[in-house]
């Protein structure tokens, strides 16, 4: 079989498998579709990306939102059709399925899992790589934050790719130390909770000024873009996305950029359960929990914690978060690991109860407007559950 025939057969079989998966109610079908494609043509990813202008988006928090956001911005400001996945499928099978989808636009914006980024980087030959942030997440899988940064550091050695990074994150600065072209965005520095020591030389970093500069040289390179210190996580990600869009040819005026930053999307969904509106944040690691807790204003709060693979199987990190924002509020814990979070809160002196299920938790709240924080799979379950919930919608806060 010739190379192009093999690819065509792989894509056709993949499409069929994907449809079948959807019809049988086994999900969106992307992963199965991609697995079939890669089984028939292991080189499909390289072939399908050849001749296309690809942006890869990776980092711990905000990958899916930023990928969707960047695709939208490119459509609006560069006037291009854009291939992208909005579902968060970010491993090789999902990426293969996305690339195979028709129409195959010249522009493709692709979310990539941190651990698969080196492989996808080599196979996709991207034009631009956006690195949002690196912090603790799924340590049972990644082992250490530093290991991810070192893996990236050893991968990014070529000159023909442009990286867009938040240089205030020392793990990202270390990741691109050998890369040729880097657009460094600074938000005037902020202490990184996982970077007490230098990711490059392990010396203790001095954060007394709110920024880092290691004697080994890490942090010495000047930023290319200086942005606003007051921006939150989703807004910082939008600033990086705008820089990537500009590299891809989008003409975005300063006031338009400001508007995009103000309206930064976040992973918050509103559900209607038992007549009560539950505004639910997706949060899956210490950094995103801190962000989500910062947004809590309601008096009654539901926390839903699972520890399936993608959530991180070790829940110890729940102890790394300061929950004082919840003091004086009524908190209900649910999810498979509700006792882990409930005990942690009780030790901090927070009034806490547990409920067997999310609807039970909502039922036990007297207010009609409730905020919730859910771990990854708990959030996905809410999106797909038939609980008499209206369909959740991700959108601006």
């Amino acid at each position, binding site marked *: 079989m010739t190379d192009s025939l093999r690819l065509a057969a792989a894509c056709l079989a993949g499409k069929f498998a994907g449809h079948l998966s959807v019809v049988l109610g086994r999900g969106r079908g992307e992963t199965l579709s991609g697995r079939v494609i890669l089984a028939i043509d292991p080189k499909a990813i390289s072939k399908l990306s050849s001749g296309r202008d690809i942006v890869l988006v990776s980092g711990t928090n905000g990958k899916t939102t930023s990928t969707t956001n960047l695709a939208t911005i490119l459509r609006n400001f560069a006037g291009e059709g854009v291939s992208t996945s909005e579902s968060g499928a970010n491993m090789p099978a999902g990426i293969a399925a996305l690339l195979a989808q028709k129409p195959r636009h010249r522009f493709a914006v692709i979310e990539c899992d941190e651990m698969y980024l080196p492989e996808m980087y080599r196979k996709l030959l991207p034009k631009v790589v956006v690195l949002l942030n690196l912090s603790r997440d799924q340590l049972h899988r990644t*082992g250490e934050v530093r290991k991810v940064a070192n893996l990236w550091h050893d991968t990014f050695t070529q000159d023909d790719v442009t990286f867009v990074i938040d240089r205030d994150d020392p793990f990202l600065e270390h990741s691109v130390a050998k890369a040729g072209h880097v657009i460094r965005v600074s938000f005037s520095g902020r202490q990184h909770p996982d970077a007490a020591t230098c990711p490059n030389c392990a010396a203790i970093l001095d954060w007394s000024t709110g920024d880092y500069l290691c004697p080994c040289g890490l942090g010495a390179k000047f930023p290319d873009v200086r942005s606003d210190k007051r921006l939150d996580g989703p807004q910082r990600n939008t600033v990086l996305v705008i820089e990537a869009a500009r590299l891809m040819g989008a003409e975005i005026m300063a006031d338009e950029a400001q508007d995009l930053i103000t309206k930064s999307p976040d992973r918050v969904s509103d559900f209607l359960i038992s007549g009560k509106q539950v505004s639910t944040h997706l949060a899956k690691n210490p950094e995103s929990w801190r962000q989500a807790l910062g947004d809590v204003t309601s008096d009654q709060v539901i926390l839903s914690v699972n520890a399936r693979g993608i959530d991180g199987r070790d829940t*110890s990190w729940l102890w790394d978060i300061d929950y004082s924002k919840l003091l004086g509020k009524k908190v209900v814990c649910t999810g498979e690991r509700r006792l882990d979070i409930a005990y942690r809160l009780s030790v901090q002196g927070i009034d806490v109860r547990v409920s067997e299920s999310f609807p039970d938790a909502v039922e036990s709240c007297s207010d009609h407007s409730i905020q919730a924080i859910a771990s990854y799979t708990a959030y996905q379950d809410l999106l797909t559950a038939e609980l008499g919930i209206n369909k959740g919608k991700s959108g601006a806060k």
Partner: protein
Amino acid sequence: MSLVIVRLYHDLLGTYGDQGNAEILVHRAKARSLEVELVEVTPGMAVPRSGDVYLLGGGEDGPQSAALEMLKRDGGLNYAAAGGATVLAICAGFQIIGETLPDSSGQITSGLGLVDAHTVYDTSPRSVGELVIQPSRGGLPILTGFENHQGLTQLGSEMPSLGIVRSGVGNGFDKKEGVWHGNVLGSYMHGPVLARNPELADAVLQCAAGPLQAFDDELAQAFAQERRTTLSRS
């Protein structure tokens, strides 16, 4: 006189949530109306020599080496341990209190020597997952935790372990997990270990404060029991 709990370098050795052990000890001491003080030691600060309980957590290789060097130079932890202070050291911290361990470049270096334990860098896949042990000392129920480590630790023949592994890896030698020598405890269990094992938390507290009264501890007990039950099924 108040009980002094010293949390050592949690910026460096706080990757896996072990700093929670300090909060749990404070919480459980206060529940018994004991006066308690938490001392936070950060890089550059001297380690107090008169603390009652010293806590070390798990961290990444680079920060582990940095913490070890500072503790060697300072000498405060060794001084306190020699005087009978209680020490609870988890994962990277457990490796630090042993005789030898690999540094961040893989070279064998000397540890603090509080216990006779030798850590080697293991080339097999990282030991990651739930860990269940039968404790070596009486009066404790089955203990559970979550392990995530590359190094394996061999205890000297005279060193009592914290327990015998029922499932998981633990020290990686002779089915042993952790160490409990005098008032010095080491373990590979995160969770944090004292959150998931309230009886162990009280055992550590008792090393420093003597016999404790009972208190209403329903949530901690429910959590510990849920972990034991779930893990015995899998």
